[in-house]
């Protein structure tokens, strides 16, 4: 049945392209996934170096390195853009999504393999433009929120902001195409018996994420286009002098920006669910509740945007609404956390590196989650707004939590992707260094924020010196943990032991573990059949067999 969908590019399947053509022209979901992951690793190194430069500047009061404070603002901006658009999104959605959605649902490839290729190259072009924007004119010193009028032609006269806008346009177009591809793949290319309610939670997570991308990114594209024409063609969508309104930008940006944080964290939810289930050797607790909690989070994520604008002057009743709507998100989020705990409860837990990162994720996500409940309240948020409390909150709940999920995913799937297994000992050491590092780095920032230290400043009143130094020490530890990760990648490919088809044993029940390691260029050419009662966790219920 599903063969009909693949017949169209059948002639590609039969030969293995080699050399540079294999990559540049690739239509293979695994190769494209690999390229996304490499792109993310490159961007992470650039974005990481920027964050260490930021922490180095902030280690002591006074201006240490950035006499040109515009360049400091450029770094803050580029760090945000890189990490959001070119590290987390490519790795989670383009990388692991590309690799494992087809494998997990028993599809031979993505629905639109050529579109898959253009999605990647648009993203790569976006990354190039974004990095070059930092070196054009004065650079974009606007923060990743790009609020006009600061981002208008009057206050950023060079071409840097235009470069940034076009970079986001390219990356956004790539993401929209990728989202369409994932949605079509999940809806049309599931193997016989793989009903929606049997899909692994990672596939659910990617599906919900793809819908968020599809609905949120066009809004950003529209907002960016208006900014572009304001800057270059004399329109005044955001210019008061021409009847425009800077708040229009804020509404549009955050209508995209809030779903964006779920675009980042939902795939992490999926990864964490797979890992916890595998290493507890138990099916996910409350599977349907978990799947629909993600749908609920995705939906509510679209109607809470103005909680980023509590101090902007929007009306009191609006703030009351956004307070209540935002707090509602805590309910499905709570369901997820308790279901993860219940999945582990009664399990037989192996503390392999992926599981350690999943546990680390829970720690970060809970701490970042409860400060989110504080910030949801307009009546108190205005005190923390634009302070380091917010910086600490979103790094805990979204940024670092997502990085933990990505590390976990890497260790979990590297055997399947490369055919070589990572060094458990090195990975455990890397976990502890990174875990301690990020907590020393970000926890004191709660204190700085409560004390009133604004974000996005290269220098601060002397009273904030103590915790800033602690935070910078944490950044140094984090840096060691990060560089060690790159070393472990090298070590895996150089010295890694040959990975078995299923290195994790009875707990690993999703379909990717039924194919050899490394996964062959083409997989599921014969479609697997999934039995009743599986949530993509066949063998536990005696389910997955290959079709004849």
């Amino acid at each position, binding site marked *: 049945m599903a063969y009909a969908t693949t017949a169209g590019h059948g002639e590609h399947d039969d030969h293995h392209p080699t050399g540079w053509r294999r990559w540049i022209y690739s239509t293979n979901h695994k190769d494209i996934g690999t390229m996304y992951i490499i792109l993310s690793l490159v961007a992470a190194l650039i974005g990481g170096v920027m964050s260490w430069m930021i922490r180095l500047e902030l280690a002591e*009061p006074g201006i240490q390195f950035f006499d040109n*404070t*515009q360049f400091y*603002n450029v770094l803050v901006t580029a760090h945000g853009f890189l990490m959001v658009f070119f590290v987390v999104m490519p790795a989670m959605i383009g990388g692991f999504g590309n690799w494992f959605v087809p494998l997990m649902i028993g599809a031979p490839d993505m629905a639109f393999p050529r579109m898959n290729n253009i999605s990647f190259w648009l993203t790569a072009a976006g990354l190039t433009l974004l990095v070059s924007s930092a070196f054009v004119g004065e650079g974009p010193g606007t*923060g990743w929120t790009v*609020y006009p*009028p*600061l981002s208008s032609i009057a*206050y950023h006269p060079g071409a840097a902001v235009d470069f940034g806008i076009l970079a986001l346009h390219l990356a956004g177009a790539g993401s929209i195409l990728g989202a369409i591809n994932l949605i079509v793949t999940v809806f049309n290319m599931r193997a016989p018996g793989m009903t929606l309610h049997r899909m692994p939670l990672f596939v659910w997570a990617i599906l919900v994420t793809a819908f968020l991308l599809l609905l949120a990114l066009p809004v950003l594209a529209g907002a960016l286009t208006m900014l572009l024409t304001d800057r270059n063609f004399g329109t005044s969508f955001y210019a*008061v002098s021409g009847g425009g309104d*800077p*708040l229009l930008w804020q509404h549009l940006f955050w209508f995209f920006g809030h779903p964006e944080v779920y675009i980042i964290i939902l795939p992490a939810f999926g990864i964490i669910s797979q890992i916890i289930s595998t290493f*507890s050797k*138990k*099916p996910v*607790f*409350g599977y349907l509740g978990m799947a629909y909690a993600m749908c609920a989070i995705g939906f509510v994520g679209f109607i809470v945007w103005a909680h980023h604008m509590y*101090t902007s*002057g929007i009306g*009191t009743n609006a703030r009351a609404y956004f*307070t*209540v709507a935002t*707090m509602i998100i*805590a*309910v499905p989020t709570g*369901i997820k*956390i*308790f279901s993860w705990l*219940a999945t582990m*409860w*009664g399990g037989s*837990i*192996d503390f392999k590196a992926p599981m350690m990162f999943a546990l680390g994720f*829970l*720690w970060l996500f*809970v701490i970042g989650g409860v400060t989110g*409940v*504080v910030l949801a*309240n*307009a*009546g*108190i948020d*205005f*005190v923390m*707004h*634009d302070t380091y409390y917010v910086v600490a909150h979103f790094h805990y709940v979204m940024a670092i939590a997502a990085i933990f999920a990505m590390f976990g995913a890497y260790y979990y799937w590297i055997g399947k992707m490369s055919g070589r297994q990572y060094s458990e000992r090195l990975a455990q050491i890397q976990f502890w260094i990174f875990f301690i590092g990020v907590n020393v780095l970000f926890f004191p920032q709660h*204190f700085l924020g*409560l*004390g*009133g230290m*604004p974000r*996005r*400043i290269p*220098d*601060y*009143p*002397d*009273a904030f010196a*103590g915790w800033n130094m602690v935070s910078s020490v944490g950044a140094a530890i984090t840096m060691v943990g990060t560089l060690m990760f790159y070393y472990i990648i090298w070590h895996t490919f150089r010295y890694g032991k040959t990975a078995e088809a299923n290195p994790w044993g009875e707990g690993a029940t999703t379909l990717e573990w039924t194919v050899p390691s490394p996964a062959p260029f083409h997989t599921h050419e014969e479609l697997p059949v999934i039995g009743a009662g599986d949530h993509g966790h066949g063998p*536990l219920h005696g389910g997955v067999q290959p079709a004849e």
Partner: protein
Amino acid sequence: MLKKLLALALVAAAAVVSGAGQLRAEPANGEPTPWAINLQPAFSPVMEKVHDFHNLLLVIIISVTVLVLAILAYVMVRFNAKRNPVPSRTSHNTLLEVVWTAVPIMILVVIAIPSLRLLFFSAKPENPEMTLKVTGHQWYWTYTYPDQEDMTFDSIPIAADQLKPGQPRLLAVDNPVVLPVDTTVQVLVTADDVIHDWAVPSLGLKKDATPGRINETWVRIEKPGTYYGMCSELCGVNHYFMPIQIEALSKEDYQAWVKQAKEQFAAKDGPATSLARADRAD
């Protein structure tokens, strides 16, 4: 293990809560202090209520965190592969799922009621006795007193090498904005170039200064003293050096200051401030 964790959290919570109270006895000085771990002490009714609400939130979020992390720790110890070689197959428990949906909703209701009360209290002053208009520029503030014949002056940050003893770096300005204590002040905030944000943490003040908009907030300062804040919206290269300094005087001293200030700033023609009486933004 569990008991120890709980005790630790309670001690921490108590320290945080009492810390806020102790500082109140000292002379009023709203500025950050080294190694502080909580909000700056409160010197306005709004900020006092923020403290109360934050203390409630702290108790809730610390309890939730400790509970979840304690379960996590228990699961890790009790259900590791060595102690529990055979995993259970349980993947449903309707009662449990209902409980962990319903209990968070109840906690949220407990939070929402004081939260909304605080929001509406902080939004609008009851009967403002005077008005202050604040205008943000790259990179200083201008203050206008519509009740004092639109007396207007600029408040320029003091460079580090020109600070007098006792003036904190990046916080002190040449002409602080002066306000009387025990007076409800309506504050109108705007800007004439990019978006800034007028913020004074210890008074519970933070409002975006947006060109083309007049945002309203209010303050009632309870003690004479000095209160510092910083611009709280990225506004360009000197964003970090755009401080706010409020001097609160007794009502009599304030009247004296007004008389003297009117002379001092008379030479300056302030911007037209008819806008200052415009409709409230909220």
